[in-house]
Structures are given as C-alpha cells and as structure tokens.
C-alpha cells in the first residue's frame, strides 16, 4: 500500500514532466489516470489516533487488573480473561462488518495476544508452570486458528512468533532438529497462499530463519553451524525461485518473497563461512563432510534440484546464475572444513563467484533485493578475507589482487562481446 502511494506520486510527477515536454498528449495523460485502479482504503490519521486510544485503554485495563489481581478470586479472574478474548474478537467482528479490515485485523491480533497472556495466567492460577514450551505451542495453535478463521495477518505473526519460541525451547531439550515446527510453518505457508498476501508471505519467510539458526547453533559440537545454514539457505533460495517460476500466480508471488530471503540468507552464509576461516572463531573443532547430518545435506541437494527445476521451467539466464550461486556456496562449505591447515583459497574464490552470480542473477531477473544481497555478500566476503587472522597477510593480498585482476579481465571480455544496453 505504501509502495503503491509512492508509485502514484512518481507517476504523477512523470506524467506532468512528459506532458510539459510534449512526450505525451493531455488526452493520453487523462487516459492513463482513468486506467489506474482506485486506491485501496488505507489508514488515515483518525484511524491511527483511534488505534493509539484503544491501546492506551487496553493498557489501563491491564494495569488495573494487575493492581487488583491477588484480591480477585480465581473464577472471576478466569471470567475476566475470557471476557478479554471475547471483547477483542467481538470488536474485530464489528470492525470487519463496518468495512475496516485493518482494525479488524488488529483486533484479531490483540485477541491472539490476550489469549497468550491468558495461557500464562491460567498456568499461574492452576500451578501449571512446568512446561513453558507446551504453553507456547498452545498459544501458537490458538493464534493460528484465529488467523485461519479471521484472515488476520497480525494473528499469523503472533502464531509464528509463539511457534518460533516453542521450537527454540524444544531444540534446547534434544540434539535432533525440531521438525514439528516445519508442519506448523507449512500450514502458515498454505495460509499465505490462500490469502494471496505478500505480508503473510514475508512473515512465513522470516519465520524460517530462526528455525534454521536454532538447528545450526544447538546442534552437536561436531556439526558445523555454517554448513547447516548453507544448506538451509540453499533450500530457501532454491525453493523460492522454483515457486516463483510456478505458473500459479499466487505461488509465484510467494516464491519471489521467499527467494528474496533465500538470497539474503545465502549472502549471510557466505560472509559467515569466510569469517569462520578466521582462527579467532575456531571454537568448534569441526569434523569432515561425512560427519555432517544427512537431513541437512538432503536440504541442500533439494535446493539445487529445485533451482534446476526452475531453470527448466523459465529457461532464463538469471535463474541459471541463481542456481550457480547456490551450487558455489554449497561447494565452498563442502570443500573446506576448519581443522584443515592452510588457507581456504578455493572456498574464498567460490564464495566470491557465488556472490557475483547473485548480483548478475538479480540484474538479469530485475530482482533488486537479490542484487543488494549479492553486493552485501561481496563486501562481507572481501572484508572477512582481508581481516582474517589466519596465514600471512602477503598471501591474502596476492589472492585478492589475483581475484581483482581476474574480475577486470572478465569485465573487459564481457565489454567486448556482450551487447551493452542503451544508456
């Protein structure tokens, strides 16, 4: 919505300029304005003030209840919690009926938050504080049910946040990944598709990141976090571009969002892998590739397969470069394991090439976030190579000079043979 407004402002400025430069006729300007769809109803200042007022009243109610909580007997307390949930949803229904979808969404989200608070307070009243993670799961299930029924993006955000905390707590209890979260995440993904909502797709994509981080950093000591994260990023990015290549428009839109997070994850992993070459961070004496978990390797392989499926569908060079970036990052983390002596020149080179592929892929597919991710990755990897404590500074300067020279030669060749776009 915000971007729609920015686009309209820019279009209006362009139309005025083109009209004054006689590029288009006034009739064409009028026709373009008529052809534009009407603005979606947004949040005006009155609504913002109303939201602030509502939040203040809710805070005052909570403070009042907290001040008198111990004086209230158990059943009236329970009745107050139930009334809080019913009020939030009742207000939501009223706003939805009155044609205020944003406020209805907000009320459903507040209802989901009150539900979470109610779980904590019921746990306190009935001495059920033993399984905090179980309480989080209950909260996530209730909030997801609310999101499904009311279409509230806010309730979906609450559900994913609660589910992430639940997953993090369960990961602390065991050495194996918490796959139960994946089932809940897929349900949230199905909701994002059913709603055809970009906001929901962003929420679902963001929720994948803490799960992968938890899986990587809570794993047994002979597993490498950067290896696990690289395979996760490969699956996110590969899955994203495969979905984006889907003929179903809803899936394609969700896929483009997922691929953005996948591209940034891939860049983050490249920087992490180059940084972990630094002896300062060699805290985990990692074992070789053969000792890495099979499920992780399967995810990486699946990411590559999905990327190739996307190439087969789109037959676009940009997608091929994206697949190349995935393959090179996976190759870099597979080729080099920290206990090795010497410096990981091949891995450094693979990581730099991967980030270059990411930038080129973004340029060819006109995917700006992918370009940004690629440039950030290049900057981060170069910084990590330059400031690594390991080995000699002279060797690193030779490597960087050789890589720079290769890039300049490549640029000259491309400049000679690739037709340049008109300035």
């Amino acid at each position: 919505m915000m971007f729609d407004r920015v686009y309209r402002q820019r279009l209006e400025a362009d139309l005025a300029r083109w009209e004054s430069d006689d590029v288009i006729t006034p009739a064409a300007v009028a026709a373009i304005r008529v052809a534009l769809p009407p603005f979606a109803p947004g949040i005006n200042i009155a609504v913002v003030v109303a939201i602030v007022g509502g939040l203040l009243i809710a805070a005052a109610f909570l403070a009042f209840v907290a001040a008198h909580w111990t004086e209230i007997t158990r059943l009236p307390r329970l009745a107050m919690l139930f009334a809080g949930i019913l009020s939030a949803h009742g207000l939501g229904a009223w706003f939805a009926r009155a044609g205020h979808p944003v406020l209805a969404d907000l009320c459903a989200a507040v209802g989901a938050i009150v539900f979470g608070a109610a779980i904590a307070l019921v746990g306190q009243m009935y001495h059920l504080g033993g399984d905090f993670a179980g309480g989080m799961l209950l909260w996530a299930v209730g909030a997801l049910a609310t999101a499904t029924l009311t279409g509230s993006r806010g309730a979906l955000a609450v559900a994913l946040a609660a589910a992430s905390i639940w997953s993090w707590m369960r990961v602390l209890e065991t050495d194996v990944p918490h796959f139960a979260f994946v089932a809940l995440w897929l349900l949230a993904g199905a909701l994002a598709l059913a709603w055809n909502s970009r906001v929901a797709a962003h929420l679902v994509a963001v929720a994948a990141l803490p799960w992968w981080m938890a899986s990587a950093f809570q794993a047994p000591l002979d597993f490498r976090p950067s290896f696990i994260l690289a395979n996760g990023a490969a699956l996110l990015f590969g899955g994203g571009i495969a979905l984006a290549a889907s003929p179903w428009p809803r899936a394609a839109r969700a896929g483009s969002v997922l691929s953005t997070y996948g591209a940034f994850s891939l860049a983050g992993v490249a920087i992490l892998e180059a940084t972990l070459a630094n002896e300062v961070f060699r805290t985990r004496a990692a074992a070789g590739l053969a000792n890495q978990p099979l499920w992780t390797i399967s995810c990486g392989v699946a990411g590559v397969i999905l990327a190739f499926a996307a190439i087969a569908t789109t037959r676009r060079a940009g997608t091929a470069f994206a697949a190349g970036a995935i393959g090179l990052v996976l190759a870099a983390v597979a080729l080099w394991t920290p206990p090795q002596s010497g410096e990981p020149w091949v891995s450094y080179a693979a990581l730099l090439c991967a980030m270059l592929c990411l930038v080129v892929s973004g340029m060819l597919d006109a995917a700006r976030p992918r370009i940004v991710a690629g440039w950030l990755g290049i900057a981060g990897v170069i910084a990590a190579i330059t400031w690594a404590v390991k080995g000699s500074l002279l060797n690193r300067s030779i490597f960087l000079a050789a890589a720079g020279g290769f890039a300049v030669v490549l640029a000259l060749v491309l400049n000679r043979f690739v037709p340049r776009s008109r300035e």
Partner: protein
Amino acid sequence: MMAMSVASLAERLARIPKIVLFGAAALVQLALLTLMIIDRAQILRDGAEVTLQTRPVDPRDFLRGDYVVLGYDITQLPAGSLQNEPSGERNPPVYVKLAPNRDGVYEALSVHAGPVAVASPEVLIRGRLAYGASCGPKRDTFCEKLTVRYNLESYFVPEGEGRKLEDVRNQGKLSVVAAVLPSGRAAIKRLLIDGKPVYEEPWF
C-alpha cells in the same frame, strides 16, 4: 490440484459472515483454555493421593514473583539400573515407582525409562529429567544421579505469603499431597504444614 483446493478454501471462508468467523476464533481460544483447566481438574478428581516431603532448594531459586519453588526428596535420585543406559535425549521422560513409608510419606523405589507395573499401595509418577541424561563419552547415557521434575515444582501463592512457606519448607515441616493418575501425570492437591492442610486446591 493443491492450488485449486487452497483457493477454493479461501473463497469458502470469505463467504461465511465475519461475525461467525470471529466468534469461532474466540471459541477455539476459550476451548483451549478450558481444556487446560479441565485436564488438571481431572487429575485432582481421579488421581491417587500421594504425600511428598519437600526439601530446601537453592536459595537463588526460592521465589520468583509470587511463586514458591518446591524441591522434593524424590527430586534427586540414584539412577540404579538406568545408569549407562542410552538416554535418547537431553531431557527424557522417566517413571518413578513410589511407595509409602511408615509415616505415610511416599519415597522413591526405582526409576524407569518407560511405564512399569505397580502393585497397590505403590504409585508410578511420571517426570522429566532436568539433569542426568548426558553422561558417557558421547553424552547420551544416563548418569549416576538424576534430577527429575514432576510438574509439581511451582506453587503460586498470594503476594507476601511466599516467604512464610519458604521458611516452613526449610524447617522440613512442609509436605505436599499430589494427585497422580495411573498414567503417571500429577498435580498438587494440597499443602500441609506439620501434617495439617493449609492450602486446598479446588478443582476450578
């Protein structure tokens, strides 16, 4: 196929009046909260009564907010035959066989990785290991000593009363009557000071 079913589901939901959908969302949440309460009430109603002796716990964990942390004589146990057996996870569930002593207070007889048969007046209580499942070279076997949590460790009290209970507990005068279902799940039923009830938990 899946694309069509997701889209048709979204369309069907969109046709239902909003008031019904919001009402259903509220009902789902209220039902889940009610289930929490009924589940506990069922343990209190059907569970066998077991008196457990509390013991002092680490002073740093005494009181957080308005609840008392309760440690029991059955919290720390020798692993017995479980020692060096594979634990499977960091906090595995365990089953502790309890039997009453001459004073009627229940004491631990043995610890098991799964449910075992018990004969009256013995009771089997289910707990989860807090510590003691990470021994051996691969840190995946049961240790010699186990620390078990039974979901009976928190008791919320009115503000200001925690300190009094804490003092009584440290003098060894506080005991807890827990209700334990045949499945091993337990809930606090009443608190006793010198054998006399001071807090009785209503079902609701």
